[in-house]
């Protein structure tokens, strides 16, 4: 399995998503080629920080 490293291609993935105003969608990271992307992981909805 690929591992994320700086200077290398970001591992592509598919995910289901919620988008406010649009509802549920299926997205791929590669949909965003040609744009800058910030991908932010976080531990959980409804937690404190």
């Amino acid at each position, binding site marked *: *399995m*690929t*591992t*994320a*490293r*700086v*200077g*290398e*291609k*970001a*591992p*592509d*993935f598919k*995910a*289901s*998503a*919620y*988008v*406010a105003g649009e509802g*549920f*969608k299926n*997205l791929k*990271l*590669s949909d*965003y*080629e*040609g*744009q*800058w*992307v*910030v*991908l*932010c*992981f*976080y*531990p*959980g*909805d*409804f*937690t404190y*920080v």
Partner: protein
Amino acid sequence: MKELGVEVLSISTDSRFSHKIWNEDELSKMVEGGIPFPMLSDQGGRIGRAYGVYDKAAGVDIRGRFLIDPDGIIQAMEVLTPAVGRNPDELIRQIKAFQHVRATGEVTPSGWEPGQATLTPGPDLVGKVWMAWKPE
């Protein structure tokens, strides 16, 4: 982020259903109109594993942030354990610096902010960085 032309994607191991309710019931009270970017679901942690941020014991993705350029290359990453939140100011500084580097081929010294001097790499600069730049 919009002004910088950057797309934000947030991602956790919660379901898209949880994201919807969290956005509608809580986040929309913190941010008017709620969260404007896609909230991705990584149930099972498959994506977190690929990015080295999946905590197997807790079953969640820890706080990892990846800046990806228009070619799909990761230019920067930051990973924190859950108790400390991020600093968006530093992320924004890094985005501006990476965008400047991509546009000009120059490089940016430590702590660089837009408008400050940059460095142009090449043989003439070797041993002479001190003339162009000093730490504050």
